[in-house]
């Protein structure tokens, strides 16, 4: 979270996304606010259905405006993307804000050469010759670490491995030197050794192009290694939002505690994992009050009644949405780390 105003690339205020369905209105994202600066990686974590992907699709203008009700503000370079006419938005999307999706198998057209697909991305926003576009495609493939880029550009996607396809997707996203790169579960479909390569590549790209990265993932390990700031989402709402170091070392929200405690550790065998009981709520009828209260071990009287606002409990702490008193959080947080470490065999 940057305090400097000039470095801010993206400022999202009160983003809310509703989908009318035959069963009722699904409120997938509720009142989400955050900002992103140059050189920053914002990690967005949460389980399936927490609204992490939908909020990014809304920012990118990739949700059907007729069938979704989106409110709030998404300010990019002084312009609100939510009210921008579709034609103007098209000049920003894919150019200034680029996106890398989870499944590199589904995102490349199987019948066109990889180089041609990247070249097409070049000509989409730039009036250049076909040859120049192809040359740019080869240059970018080389840049993201595809060996023999010149000949591999003529390959079809099925000739690429999963990791190479994801590299090609990143190359395509970089075509117009974007300011923001949104990565939606970029490594989920990849093996762990390839995942490590892609994480390194995203970090390199961020430094080199001086861009802001939004990294959406369910993998807390990936976030811990790359993000500067972390936003923890549950049932479409932000539960906790702060510097990565604080989120992992002094998490303040019981949901974050639950997430961290249920993660199997590679460093030691735990006597028992501590799962979060129950399952995430339906967004058709979210529970009243705090959306996490039915699964929360620390709930008390106000939780099912009042929804806690996202505020900093203390000036030096980061904002969280929880009714627990600060002293209690400190006490429970300390107890928690003792229990977990005490598991060391």
């Amino acid at each position, binding site marked *: 979270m940057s305090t400097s105003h000039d470095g801010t690339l993206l400022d999202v205020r009160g983003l809310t996304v509703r989908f009318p369905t035959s069963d009722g209105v699904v409120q997938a994202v509720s009142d989400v606010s955050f900002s992103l600066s140059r050189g920053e990686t914002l990690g967005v974590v949460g389980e399936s259905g927490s609204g992490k992907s939908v909020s990014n699709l809304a920012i990118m203008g990739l949700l059907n405006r007729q069938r979704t009700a989106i409110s709030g503000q998404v300010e990019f370079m002084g312009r609100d993307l939510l009210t921008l006419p579709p034609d103007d938005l098209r000049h920003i999307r894919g150019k200034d804000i680029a996106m890398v999706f989870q499944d590199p198998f589904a995102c490349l057209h199987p019948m066109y050469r990889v180089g041609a697909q990247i070249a097409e991305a070049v000509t989409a926003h730039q009036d250049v010759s076909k040859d120049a576009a192809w040359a740019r495609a080869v240059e970018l493939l080389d840049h993201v670490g595809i060996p023999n880029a010149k000949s591999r550009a003529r390959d079809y996607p099925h000739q690429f491995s999963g990791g190479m396809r994801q590299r090609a997707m990143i190359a395509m996203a970089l075509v117009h030197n974007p300011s923001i790169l949104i990565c939606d579960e970029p490594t989920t479909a990849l093996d762990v050794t390839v995942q490590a390569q892609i994480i390194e590549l995203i970090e390199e790209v961020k430094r080199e192009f001086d861009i802001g990265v939004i990294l959406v993932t369910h993998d*807390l390990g990936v976030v811990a290694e790359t993000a500067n700031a972390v936003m923890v989402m549950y049932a479409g709402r932000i539960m906790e939002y702060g510097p990565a*170091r604080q989120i992992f070392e002094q998490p303040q929200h019981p949901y974050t505690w639950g997430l961290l405690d249920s*993660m199997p550790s590679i460093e030691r065998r735990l006597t028992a994992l501590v799962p979060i009981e129950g399952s995430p709520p339906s967004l058709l009828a979210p529970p009243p009050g705090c959306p996490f209260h039915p699964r929360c071990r620390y709930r008390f009287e106000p939780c099912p009644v009042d929804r806690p606002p996202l505020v900093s409990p203390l000036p030096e702490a980061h904002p969280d949405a929880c009714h627990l008193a600060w002293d209690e959080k400190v006490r429970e947080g300390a107890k928690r780390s003792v229990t977990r470490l005490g598991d060391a065999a």
Partner: protein
Amino acid sequence: MSANGNLVEVENLTKRFAVKQGVFARGKTEVHAVEGINLTVRRGETLGIVGESGCGKSTTARLMLRLLDLTAGTVRFDGTDISTMSQRALRPLRREMQMIFQDPYSSLNPRKTVGQIVGAPFAIHGQKGAKTRVQELLETVGLSPEHYNRYPHEFSGGQRQRIGVARALALSPKLIVCDEPVSALDVSIQAQILNLLRNLQRDFNLTYVFISHDLSVIRQIADRIAVMYLGKIVELGDSESIYEHPKHPYTAALLSAVPRATSGGRERIVLSGDVPSPVDPPAACVFHPRCPRFHEGQCDVETPQLRELATGQSAACHYPLEKWPMTDDEIRQAEGAERVDRPHLEGTAHEL
């Protein structure tokens, strides 16, 4: 009943799949899915099989259960050689071996009720009084007996996986093969299922073969692990020894590649390139094209055998790691001999 403590004994297990190549399918080639594996599964233990996609871990498990026919080798289950047994002759043994699948959405028939799904093993093996047994099973796995008449779509992913566990438990098997049972689940639900599997093992004295690509999950559940790469076991041994002191460079690279949610610097070995094609696996040591300790003239000529390097820990490597963790230089300079320069491997380790 075999006298020793092994429930499954696998010798020289090999499976090759024929694939057609080319438009006219003239060139017949083979995928070397599993190549000469030796393995035992002890009674009451959890054997974890780890490796990246395509390394042959699922094929190995399916061969153990004879869900696939062997190309070569033998499998002994509970003292009986089942490698060439007919499916009919195998049927009575089938109730002793069960499987839990990865995808709780596609492994349950959407048109059958939970009662029918979990009761199916009883029907197949002609056992009566299934309904009460099914309701007991549902309670055992943390579901309610009232769920008997519901359909799979009424359940969440975690609950569906519990249904799959109940079905596997139905005939009180000795062995359960869990093929990526928690990979499709969110982390909070994953922990619920892992705890359930651990408790069931304790209560019913089960033996698990647990397949996963997730090294953290394997650490929580497995007593011993087999690390596979391109159809071969590269390292085998007690889970704790392997996690604390990996001997094979591939195991070390895998362990160091896992992102961690805890702070603290460590070295990461980033392997270059991808896993080679199992149609034409590299000669000798299958890992040599990606290995930071590659020694020309040995690793690409002589196949390393799985040998015991510490008590209860074997690795198939000519230059096993002397210690762990290691720096980049130490990894490259095995026994004083610096590896031949391979430009694409430069900068393999990074300080985090």
